[in-house]
């Protein structure tokens, strides 16, 4: 990345109301915005009503909307209104992060150096989100023992389906455990304990998974929050992309992963070509992972017709 002083000598001049950013950052902001819009579209949050949806489509199809202050202000406004209209406790954590991210962009574009302001905001938002996530890993009583992963392997469809595909969990085990837990809401019976058959492989690997999660999340938090010297800033990209690659195949909360990629891209100081390929590959890989079931289903149908 060339020095900010040099970059500001060649600020892009756009129409009135457009953000003025150095040429080198045009592509970063465009790609960050595109990732953000696609992440929204692939899994529309409950906070997004029709106005938000229309703005996101506009952002994707209009060549310079992402550089308009009014556009980001409108997007933030519709998301804030949408957030106020849904039950606060129905929101997932990535819905909060989506709102924070759009709000951060909408505010940073009013600064004198939007690219630097957005990089700082992105770094802080990602670092703080991971700091809280790590804090909870220590506060929750069942996490560090591996207990959380054992019970989640047999009650969470997302993780359970991956373990079922790997042959580690019986095909109906997750559905059976879930049915037993959901029976606690049956008013005609008293809630009773549910015995789960935790496979030996899951039991032995669970504590390692727990501490591995703490390690990778701590690494992201520290690298993003610490004021690193420029020669060490690549560690942020490695930590975040490493987290995405290691985590989301097992816990496919893809909207969260895609948003993290968009945010991390905004702060990345990697060499431009490496930055593009690293982040685009991660984003597309995650998107393909989301389409995995659909692709498998489609291939199955094609094979069934051919055979």
């Amino acid at each position, binding site marked *: 990345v060339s020095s900010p002083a040099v970059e500001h000598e060649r600020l892009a001049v756009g129409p009135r109301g457009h953000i003025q950013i150095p040429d080198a950052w045009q592509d970063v902001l465009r790609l960050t915005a595109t990732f953000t819009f696609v992440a929204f579209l692939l899994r529309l949050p409950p906070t997004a009503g029709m106005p938000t949806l229309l703005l996101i489509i506009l952002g994707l199809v209009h060549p310079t909307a992402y550089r308009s202050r009014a556009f980001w202000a409108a997007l933030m406004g519709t998301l804030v209104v949408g957030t106020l209209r*849904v*039950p*606060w*406790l*129905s*929101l*997932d*954590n990535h819905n*909060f992060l989506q709102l*924070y991210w759009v*709000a*951060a962009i909408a*505010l*940073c574009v009013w*600064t*004198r*150096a939007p690219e630097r*302001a957005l990089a*700082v*905001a992105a770094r*802080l*938002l990602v670092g*703080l*989100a*991971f700091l*809280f*996530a790590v*804090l*909870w890993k220590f*506060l*929750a*009583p*069942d*996490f560090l*023992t*591996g*207990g*959380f992963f*054992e*019970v*989640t392997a047999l*009650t969470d469809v997302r993780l359970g389906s991956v373990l079922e595909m790997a042959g580690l969990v019986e095909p109906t085990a997750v559905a059976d*455990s879930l049915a*037993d*837990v*959901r029976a*606690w*809401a*049956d*008013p*005609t019976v008293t*809630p*009773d*304990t*549910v*015995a*789960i058959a935790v496979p030996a492989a899951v039991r032995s690997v669970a504590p390692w998974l727990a501490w591995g*999660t703490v390690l990778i999340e701590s690494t992201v938090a520290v690298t993003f929050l610490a004021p690193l010297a420029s020669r060490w800033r690549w560690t942020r990209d490695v930590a975040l992309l490493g987290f995405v690659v290691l985590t989301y195949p097992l*816990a496919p*909360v893809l909207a969260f992963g895609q948003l993290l990629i968009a945010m991390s891209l905004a702060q990345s100081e990697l060499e431009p070509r490496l930055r593009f390929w690293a982040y685009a590959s991660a984003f597309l890989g995650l998107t393909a992972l989301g389409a995995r079931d659909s692709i498998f289903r489609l291939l199955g149908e094609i094979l069934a017709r051919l055979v």
Partner: protein
Amino acid sequence: MRNRRDVVLTLLVPVVLVLVGGNQVRAALTTELTPWKGGGFGMFASPDVHDQRAVRAVASAGTADEVPLDVRSAEPLLRGAELAAFVNFRAAPTERGARRLVEVFEGLDWSFDDGAGRAVGRRGPSETGVTVRTGDRSISYELVEVAVWKMTYDRDRSEIVPENNFRTEVRLRGDP
């Protein structure tokens, strides 16, 4: 970034994240808020998942006459503020949330079937309490006990253990 306005514009959202997250941690440690909800990034840390919590209710008109209500049957009928009352109570049960939820139950049409009152529709505003129909007969209940059960895990026994983390009685009319 020496300009004060730029600093505020840049740091405002991260500060909001810290305030919301800090408040969520405090609330989850001091109340029955599930770690998964409230914007504190407590997901994938605890088995106490909000949508695996069970909300149970029993309506009574006295010591002898009581009927369990199937809250599961009510959930698909709820919209807007009513659904918010249910979702918020399940994720963070409080006395106030319990009263709000029971008031929602009051507006539903309950029919006695297979040992419990099942919500089968809406009946509009009521002044008579939670009313359960049995054939041609309707009984109104003014006292409703609501409870929330959450998942805990006993690793030594490999058992998911239900824990009743909230229980209260709501009287809809008259003095307790």
